[in-house]
């Protein structure tokens, strides 16, 4: 229970510090974004994401749509504007969005194919999906290890990691999985 309170406190501290930094520097960024960077920076010093923080993140992030809803409904304030400018708005949101998405997808695909011949191999998920942070570091409490990464889609990967049928000598399958993920890019 205490761990959860600590996790929530850490989030709020990051949020406040982020907001404070925005005020201090006058950067045109939302405070929450800087708060996110601060939390990420803090997490880099830990061997893996604390269990409680992971659980809180899973719950909060799964319902991101709900937290966004009041902001999206702000559109209601501008119904008049919508009536006046509907054509450019519609084209901008449909056509320009489609073009943007296509260009992004294509550039990403092209660059990752250029990076090596391994495009397909490196990016074929969910198998290479490395939530290997719990596995790369020796887990002090092995019993909690399946839960230590709660945001991931656990079923397929964990079964794959814990009993690797293709790899008989691998009771140390976890470091192996990590090496795989890294070897993919030469």
């Amino acid at each position, binding site marked *: 229970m205490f761990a959860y309170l600590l996790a929530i406190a850490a989030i709020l501290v990051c949020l406040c510090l982020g907001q404070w930094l925005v005020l*201090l520097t006058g950067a045109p960024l939302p405070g929450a974004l800087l708060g996110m960077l601060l939390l*990420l920076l803090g997490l880099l010093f830990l061997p893996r994401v604390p269990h409680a923080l992971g659980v809180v993140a899973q719950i909060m992030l799964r319902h991101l749509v709900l937290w966004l809803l009041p902001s*999206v409904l702000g559109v209601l304030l501008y119904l008049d*504007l919508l009536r006046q400018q509907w054509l450019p708005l519609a084209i*901008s949101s449909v056509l320009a*969005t489609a073009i943007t998405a296509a260009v*992004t997808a294509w550039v*990403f695909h092209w660059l990752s194919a250029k990076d090596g011949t391994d495009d397909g191999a490196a990016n074929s998920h969910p198998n290479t999906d490395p939530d290997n942070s719990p596995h790369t570091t020796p887990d002090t409490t092995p019993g909690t290890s399946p839960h230590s*990464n709660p945001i991931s*889609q656990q079923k397929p990967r964990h079964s794959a990691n814990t009993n690797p049928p293709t790899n008989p000598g691998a009771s140390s399958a976890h470091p192996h999985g990590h090496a795989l993920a890294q070897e993919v890019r030469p």
Partner: protein
Amino acid sequence: MSAQALDGASLQAVITAVFAPLLPAQWTGAALLQTLLWSALTIAAYFLALWLFKRARQHPLCIPVLTAGLLMGAILLGSGTSYGQYETAAAQLKWMLAPALVLLAVPLRQQLVQMRTVWRPLLGAVMAGSVTAMVCVLAIGWVFALEPEVLISMLPKSATMPIAVQGAQALGGLPGLTAVNVAFTGIAGAMMIGPMLRWMRLKDEILRGVTMGLTAHAIGVAHEMPRNQTSGTFAALAMSLTGVCTAVLLPLGAAF
């Protein structure tokens, strides 16, 4: 500006500002009743939308943001509630977005290794996508001969809402138009990108996440997070990078 003038007092001001929607003033009498009513309605609409999305086998026309948004919009218009009233009543729900955004650091940390392998295509795609979004808007503005202030308002269409609104406002745009355009872009992106990538035969989850986060910003991230962690994480990453990229590029684009 000296840092000394800013430390004690302003830190307190920041904390008050951050937690303002949760302060006890909101928790009395009629305000409390309003809060409970509208929060409950929003949550109900959200779960109804989730259920519908599942029933429709995740059909892109039934994405929760759209259905829940339409439902709540209809309720608000039907009951004659102004958005201002609703916004104060749902302030607590809205506030939850900030800590949720901070928590995006958790999946980012968990996928750090994978991020290292794709940083080059990622940066390239973010640059290309941000520029493309702006060029498209400039082209639309040219075709429709839009007034400069309308054009500037529509430029930051793929950034997250606060960045886009602040950026456009600083350059003399109309914040309302920016907000509408950003919201529509997000919803349209979340609806179109899935079928589009299938059509382009790009099945990679990282690619899907990057495209989603870049184009559809927070709405894309929210759409991807429950679906697949990898694409959700990369959507979050692409969204953050695009936000920064747009903030930098915006004055350049507006110069045209």
